[in-house]
């Protein structure tokens, strides 16, 4: 204990970093944050299960009620219901990931990392990447359970469905992290997330398809992006890839992801970079 301190000084580049090196640093930073967050997820053994508890319960306790109903759609009720549960998982799981970041802000971890060369974008993307991985793994577990209940879907359809889940969860996770950089306390964050998630979930026709809805509800649901994702995943689970619904779902989901990433970047960059926030 107590060995002498090293006296070497850090070599600091005074010349501008070449673009290739900057990209390498950026990728390495994303990897670092991703790894750190993933280890945190794996350490918390219960996290994985609790995050998917609600969709799991809907799948096992609500899904069986639908098997003998006419949902007004092609295919089995499971082909309609499981995609809805996947989008529900993404919506619930993705929206709340910001809570973890908020806790790290309050404990000073975020500030500690901001006083390093780490770019805010890398911090955002590394975290969102972890969330995507977690939600895709949870989706696979839900699909396996669905198969046990009687879901039948082509393998390629499941893979495409998971791609939809991945893009949507990345979008929501990024937005959630962005909000977490601006909201001060976990209760406020939970209030905002709750208020947003509940109506969006009901309006997306996740539990029951909007084919059952009266005209006014169907019309309102057209304004909710998740509806298009859910309908597209339903189509691919039924083995249909080249439909207008799938194209619309892909366009809306990717568009939403771009918008969310842009918003999140703004929210991340703006924090603490001006005198707007009380230190």
């Amino acid at each position, binding site marked *: 204990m107590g060995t002498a301190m090293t006296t070497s000084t850090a070599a600091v580049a005074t010349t501008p970093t070449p673009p290739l090196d900057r990209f390498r640093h950026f990728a390495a930073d994303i990897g670092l944050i991703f790894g750190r967050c993933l280890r945190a997820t794996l350490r918390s053994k219960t996290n994985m299960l609790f995050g998917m508890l609600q969709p799991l319960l809907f799948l096992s306790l609500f899904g069986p009620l639908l098997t003998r109903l006419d949902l007004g759609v092609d295919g089995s009720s499971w082909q309609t219901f499981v995609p809805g549960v996947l989008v529900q998982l993404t919506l619930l799981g993705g929206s709340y990931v910001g809570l973890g970041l908020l806790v790290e802000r309050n404990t000073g971890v*975020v500030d500690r990392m901001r006083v390093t060369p780490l770019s805010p974008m890398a911090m955002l993307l590394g975290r969102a990447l972890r969330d995507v991985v977690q939600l895709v793994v949870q989706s696979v577990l839900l699909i396996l359970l669905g198969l046990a209940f009687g879901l039948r879907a082509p393998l390629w359809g499941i893979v495409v469905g998971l791609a939809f889940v991945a893009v949507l969860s990345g979008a929501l996770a990024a937005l959630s992290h962005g909000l977490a950089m601006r909201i001060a306390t976990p209760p406020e964050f939970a209030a905002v997330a709750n208020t947003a998630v509940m109506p969006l979930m009901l309006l997306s026709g996740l539990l029951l398809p909007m084919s059952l809805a009266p005209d006014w509800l169907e019309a309102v649901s057209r304004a909710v992006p998740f509806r298009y994702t859910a309908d597209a995943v339903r189509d691919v689970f039924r083995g249909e890839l080249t439909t207008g619904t799938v194209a619309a779902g892909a366009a809306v989901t990717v568009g939403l992801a771009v918008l969310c990433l842009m918003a999140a970047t703004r929210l991340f960059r703006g924090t603490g970079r001006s*005198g707007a926030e009380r230190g």
Partner: protein
Amino acid sequence: MDCDFAIDCASIGGMTPPPTPEPGPAPSPPRAALDIRALSLTYALKSGPVQAVRGIDLTVPRGEILGFLGPNGAGKTSTLRMLTTLLRPTGGEAQVAGHDLLAEPSAVRSCIGYVAQTGGLDPACGVREELVTQARLHRMPKQAARHRAEELAGELGLTGLLDRPTAALSGGQRRRLEIALGLVNHPEVLFLDEPTTGLDPGSRAELWELVRRIRRERGTTVFLTTHYLDEADALADRIVVVDGGRTIAEGTPEALKRTHGPGPGASLQDAFLALTGRGPSHEPVAV
């Protein structure tokens, strides 16, 4: 931990050793560690603008331990957060470790260490993992980062704790880990925001000695804020007192006591209370 500072114990309560010049044959460039000009910060609140910092001028030579004092709300933490690139100043300029704060924040970040009041540890994370991550964030290759973690653990008496989660550390051990994180990149300037708040007297004494040792062995400039006047008196070569976002006094602890204290034998506390008008003595102060 007690043995860690056995060699240095004699100097506790004694004289602070004078700043040692940078070791090595290369002559250090004649520039200050910190050169701050008219630094200001105005918060835009709904109720109107609030001037948290109103033009601070300050030069800190390399290797100095500077005590930055002031009552609550004086602008200490805001100033510290500006100098560490966490808040963008709304006015003025500063050179930190030879880099322009506004133009090269990234270069500034590479040359400083920052230990916040809240510390910044993930309770579930292991000590080694925190150190290695911080080193990697400073762009050290994996192997070098691991080596640096072990080296710092040795220097700060954390070797036996490397594989514990940070939640299992005592208050003093946590503080040392937080300081170790701030030292990962061999910073030229180390910023400590109220480093001994909440520590027991033994851990405080250890921490003071650690700060002295960091400066003595590495020549690091230390910029520290504190509410404890005995701490500033014991540690700082020079003290800056801020109030209402302005510098209201500056000097060695001895000079402040002599100039602003109510009489002979005045403590730094007497001088501080007289200066900030918070104490029994209300003599007007010309600075």
